[in-house]
């Protein structure tokens, strides 16, 4: 129960921070970090997969409605929500009975960093490719993906390292 309330809070705070602060940051001219996916990244490992998908969809749509991009964030977020379990199993071996929240402490530093990097890159690639919707701007889009992913990863790892759990 406590976890549910914590997650609801996390959802609201992440959406507010993303929409009111980060969407206004124009780092290096056109780079926009998207840290709201931290919500999907830090859902418990054994969360029901259908619930993860639905939550990701709702989160994506919320961000979409604030940034005039119907569907784009929803698409990218559902995609990483679906791939999440596979990626977690790739890097870690968590015992049957455990249900930890992904973090440096439960995964180990190396595994957690790999997990965050892969998830963020998949999300940002899907998002920016969907935004441009063609291959004419492919260099600009790749540059955006690389720089934005880098900033997002740094921010997410920074936030995570502040919490001891």
């Amino acid at each position: 129960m406590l976890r549910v309330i914590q997650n609801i809070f996390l959802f609201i705070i992440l959406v507010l921070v993303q929409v009111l602060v980060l969407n206004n940051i124009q780092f290096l001219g056109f780079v926009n970090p998207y840290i709201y996916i931290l919500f999907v990244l830090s859902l418990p490992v054994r969360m029901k997969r259908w619930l993860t998908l639905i939550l990701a969809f709702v989160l994506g749509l919320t961000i979409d409605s604030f940034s005039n991009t119907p569907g784009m964030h929803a698409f990218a977020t559902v995609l990483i929500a679906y791939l999440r379990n596979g990626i977690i199993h790739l890097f870690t071996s968590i015992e049957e009975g455990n249900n930890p929240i992904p973090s440096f402490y439960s995964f180990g530093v190396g595994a957690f960093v790999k997990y965050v990097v892969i998830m963020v890159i998949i999300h940002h690639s899907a998002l920016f490719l969907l935004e441009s919707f063609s291959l004419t701007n492919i260099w600009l889009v790749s540059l955006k993906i690389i720089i934005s992913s880098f900033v997002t990863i740094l921010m997410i790892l920074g936030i995570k390292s502040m919490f001891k759990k």
Partner: protein
Amino acid sequence: MRNLINFLIRYSVMILFLFLEAISFALVVNNRDYQKSVFLSSSNTLVANMYEASNSVVEFFKLKAANENLAEENTALKNEIIALHNQLATLMPQKKDSIRFRIPPEMEFTYISAKVTNNSTNRLQNYITLNKGRRDGVRVDMGVISDEGVVGIVKTVSDKYSVVIPVLNEKLKINCKFKKNNYSGPLEWTGEDYRFARLDDIARHVEFSLGDTLITSGYANNLPEGIPVGTIDNFKIKESDAYYNIKVKLAVNFRTLSYVKIIDYKNYKEQKAVEQKAAED
């Protein structure tokens, strides 16, 4: 039958995934049209109210610049009034024998002033939300300008808010021309820098130089002629090209945009109707 049910249970997560992705993708694709529904955009009342609240804080920090702009505009307007008074005085005697049947050209446009409540400059498709909507007389397809120059075109309207598709959006092409020789071409944003855009279709024989001013051509029914768009920043032409590749420095600073004017063109309906009729025949 049992196999089918087993199959559905086994792949339920996958099916849900595909279903949600299909919805998202459909939303993205439908949104590529020039007109889109008000739903799920920042002219949505809840979202817009929240943006307005956050904007009231940010606005405070922009007050000084806005004040300076207003003062400048004020003096310019006052000077213009004096100049017009003088002109009017000289023209007075001739007025008797001219009877006017139509709206005089200087009264074809009126302005609706509006405040920017949400604005982005860092995406490939940027949008601007304004705090005026249908009940203030805003219609879809009206032009939007600021004191500095052209901003964009109204895309969606709700009762109290409207969303503008600005020059900083690949979907919008504004037809503009050189102030000094009237050669015109479409202006398009390249998606990289909010200060610059690209001008196309200027043929090799056209003469111009760095720093030349570009204004709107008035060939559309939403932006009148003569509004500043930008200045020539740089241009290139290869030996084999027929057209110049021109980099334009935009007149408007989209990062500091806070007050704009929406242009209400009185003859919009009539012009649109007659153009449509011509296209149908």
